[in-house]
């Protein structure tokens, strides 16, 4: 009896440590994104970037919606709703791919400047590029979770991978919540 109790307690402990570890990673990653954020204002000051605002709003909405479905997936796995979990996870991944298509495909494709074109180019491509790279790694993470999910590896009691991948995805969303207004909405010409 007590050994089962011990393993539950030790799982809780491992969970707590894993969570802390992941948040420490987020803190560290946040410094990197923070550095790029400061660069935007240091190099460009109060100048606005010449970007397509409609496209910016569109990709932001896509990412926000993907976060919604990711949360949904996480809730469903904890409620033993396997079909709902898989569906929501797949939608999240599809929306994530759409975001990459929107930013790397459309935004980068139609930008009026290149990465070498002065401060504006450097700031825009570095910030969106770094963020997009995190979206890509997030999608890889989610694909692994999807594969494991399809193999029925997750239970309401033990699904830390889902929670962790969801947190990573939301972290990427949080970065974009700051980067979007800073790049597309702030500043005067």
């Amino acid at each position, binding site marked *: 009896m007590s050994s089962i109790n011990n393993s539950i307690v030790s799982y809780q402990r491992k969970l707590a440590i894993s969570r802390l570890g992941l948040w420490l990673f987020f803190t560290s990653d946040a410094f990197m994104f923070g550095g790029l954020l400061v660069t935007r204002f240091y190099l460009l*000051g*109060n*100048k606005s970037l010449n970007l397509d605002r409609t496209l910016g709003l569109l990709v932001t909405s896509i990412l926000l919606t993907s976060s919604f479905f990711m949360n949904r997936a996480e809730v469903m796995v904890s409620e033993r709703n396997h079909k709902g979990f898989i569906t929501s996870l797949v939608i999240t991944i599809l929306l994530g791919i759409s975001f990459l298509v929107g930013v790397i495909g459309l935004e980068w494709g139609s930008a009026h400047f290149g990465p070498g074109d002065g401060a504006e180019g450097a700031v825009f491509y570095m910030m969106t590029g770094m963020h997009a790279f995190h979206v890509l790694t997030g999608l890889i993470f989610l694909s692994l979770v999807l594969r494991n999910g399809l193999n029925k590896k997750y239970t309401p009691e033990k699904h830390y991978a889902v929670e962790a991948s969801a947190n990573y995805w939301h972290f990427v969303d949080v970065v974009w919540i700051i980067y979007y207004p800073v790049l597309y909405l702030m500043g*005067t*010409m």
Partner: protein
Amino acid sequence: MKNSGFWFLLVVIAAVGIVFGFVVERPYTYRGSLIDPAVPAPEFSLLSSQGGDYRLDSRTGKFILIFFGYTHCPDVCPTTLYEMKEIKARLKDKAENIEFVFVTVDPERDTQDQLKRYLSSFDESFFGLTGSTEQLEMVWKDYGVYREIQETDNSLGYLVDHTSRLYLINSQGELMMTYLYETTLDEIVSDLNYLIKKADL
């Protein structure tokens, strides 16, 4: 209600943001050398590269950016005129409320036609002003423009040393600001953007 602390924090942040966003107004700092109080811009009437006369007092309602230079100028004038062209482009619609004026410091060589030809390589809406040396001497004096002919040996003929400031007259015909040559494009555009918005033109 374990989340009440969170919502309280949210409301506080929203309140601070709204107060500083809507209620508190940060005064705008001009990037140029402000003339405070603004003085009525000294009147002049000169020959225009666009034909006929250009009378300053008939231009109220528009902001006027004036530069004193000459067409044989090797460096300062072309760069400043290029900047003026950029300023006009950056302001987009708002540029309708500005007139860009180039007053010569070399009336001997800068005729109306000469100015028209010279300015056409920058922007055809720019006004090039000339006149008799006596008329222009009064304008140079009124605006504090330094002007001195430098004889040279080369084929360019003589050069003219001159003040390189930009002068800004507001829509009420008052001389309100000058910009040193080193002022950046962004700074001038920022000021003009603010002034035009404020004047509600």
